[in-house]
């Protein structure tokens, strides 16, 4: 344990405050920008106090969007992002917990091979295999669909690996006790393993929801229909404005709105999330 000394307390707080400032300043500037008029950011002087265009900016984004940039209103895009993030997070968790269960608790031929095959895909992120993946999705006519947005991103070596590591820490005796109590493989999974994994699932859900929400390259590639645009790629379209300065006040309003769902997820799952990351008690 670190001793409780005033100087250390001061130092650790100083580091924390500096870190917080570094992280928070850009967010704060974005927030200020979203409350200002369209021209105020073009002068080169960054204002640090809120302006009076707040309601107008946000209303414009939610109701009509930036039609000049070819982006739809913000609300449908946020719904698309929500569907995509939820499908990816839930899909990844369901698939990886089942595959981890198979790999840890069942003896079948090529079990080690199956594990390593999954593990190796960790080294191949979406960007590396994006051309063949696009080819497959296009051939299956899944362009411009929710299936195309989510299914290729659902398989997850990371989550499988994390669940595997967790399952390996579940004491052998517990499995044996369940066997003596007459719990078969499905019952054991459902009644014992799943409740024990609750905090891990919550932690993963938070991480994967944000991963899904922040997807940019993949939706950009496979959606050409504005009905399937997601908010993160939409924001990029708004900012990349041809022959004119971007309307930063509106873009920043969109950014602020787009940041709300992940923040809500974190706030509501924070307790479980932290427990899932630090808990060792079984």
């Amino acid at each position: 344990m670190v001793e409780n000394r005033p100087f250390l307390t001061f130092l650790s707080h100083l580091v924390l405050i500096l870190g917080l400032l570094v992280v928070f300043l850009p967010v704060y500037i974005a927030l200020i920008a979203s409350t200002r008029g369209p021209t105020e950011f073009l002068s080169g002087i960054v204002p640090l106090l809120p302006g009076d265009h707040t309601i107008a900016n946000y209303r414009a984004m939610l109701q009509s969007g930036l039609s000049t940039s070819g982006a739809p209103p913000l609300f449908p895009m946020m719904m698309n992002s929500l569907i995509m993030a939820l499908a990816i997070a839930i899909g990844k968790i369901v698939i990886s917990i089942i595959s981890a269960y198979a790999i840890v608790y069942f003896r079948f031929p090529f079990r080690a091979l199956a594990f390593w095959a999954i593990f190796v895909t960790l080294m191949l992120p979406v960007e590396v295999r994006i051309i063949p993946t696009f080819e497959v999705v296009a051939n299956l006519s899944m362009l411009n669909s929710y299936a195309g947005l989510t299914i290729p991103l659902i398989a997850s070596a990371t989550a499988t690996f994390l669940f595997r590591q967790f399952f390996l820490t579940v004491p052998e005796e517990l499995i044996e006790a369940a066997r003596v109590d007459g719990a078969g493989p499905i019952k054991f999974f459902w009644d014992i393993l799943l409740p024990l994994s609750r905090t891990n699932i919550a932690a993963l859900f938070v991480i994967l929801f944000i991963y899904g929400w922040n997807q940019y390259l993949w939706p950009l590639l496979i959606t050409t229909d504005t009905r399937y645009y997601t908010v993160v790629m939409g924001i990029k379209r708004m900012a990349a404005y041809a022959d004119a300065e971007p309307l930063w006040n509106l873009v920043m309003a969109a950014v602020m709105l787009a940041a709300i769902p992940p923040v809500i997820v974190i706030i509501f799952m924070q307790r479980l999330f932290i427990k899932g990351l630090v808990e060792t008690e079984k």
Partner: protein
Amino acid sequence: MATVELKDVKKTYAGGVEAVKGVSIDIPDGQMCVLVGPSGCGKSTLLRMVAGLETITAGDVLIDNNVVNRLGPAERDIAMVFQNYALYPHMKVYDNMAYGLRNRGMPRPEIDQRVREAAATLGLAELLERKPRELSGGQRQRVAMGRAIVRSPKAFLFDEPLSNLDAKLRGQMRIEIKAIQRRFGVTSIYVTHDQVEAMTLADILVVMNAGLAEQIGTPLSIYERPATTFVAGFIGSPSMNLMKAVAQGAKGLQLADGGSVVKPRDTELPQGGREVLLGVRPEHFTLVKDGKNADLELSVTAVETLGADTLAHGRPSGSNGSGGEIIARLPGASRIDEGDVLPLAIDPGLAHLFDAASGQRI
């Protein structure tokens, strides 16, 4: 209620390691059989084979005269108490106890009745709504017992259930386990490496060593007549003194390390020249006033005063030091100091002779 019978049960692991090399035990209905031995002797493996958690390489396990080799743990109708209790951490005490019953499809009211009865018996009635992590070690142990009791199984299996408790609680739980086993009259197998637990709990004691049952009998018969030097050394604390000696026919025994001649009275001595091990338990030495009646003179090198008893460590006088140390347990009142030479008599009939080569009792 059932009989449990093991017929030449063997376990060989995939790597070729023979964990259990053929053990046969008969446990009559309602009796408690304790398997005791050092770690790695195969006692836990044997128990797990009875439970159905480990496959049986050869031989048969019979519960109520039915061979259960191929049945799963749940179908054998046994209940097991694990070393680390193996309580389901996310379930309340009540659900921990009820889980096995629910899996059998028992009606809800009956489950409730059984759980509450068991909880009352074990003093857990107040704790039914708690989670295992909110309980002390002893309470968790009781819940594990409760989970076994509610099933009304044919047999209880205990796998070193007390080894995680502190000494005081262990003694207390030992008595409780015994009382519960008696009250319910359930045939039990109990694995432990603690010989005090083994002695106090067993109706039938099985001393195991290197995958074999060295001796099977009642605790007292094993204490009084150990069949081998291994059993002699394992049962009893401090261990039995084993002294190398050469039989001199009618003259007695010559200790191999040059110590004084010992003539245990009322013990039949084998023919001259045979190498033997003389076994005497520390508590079977008596301090005699008159050196003439002494069987052995002990030069004391260390004294442990326990209060009720005093343990005198030393060597036989005249020893060249090549033999082992001898421990004598003497009444606490006898004041002994290092360097004393104690005339000791061996209690008649309580000396044991083993063949030096085979370790078998003569």
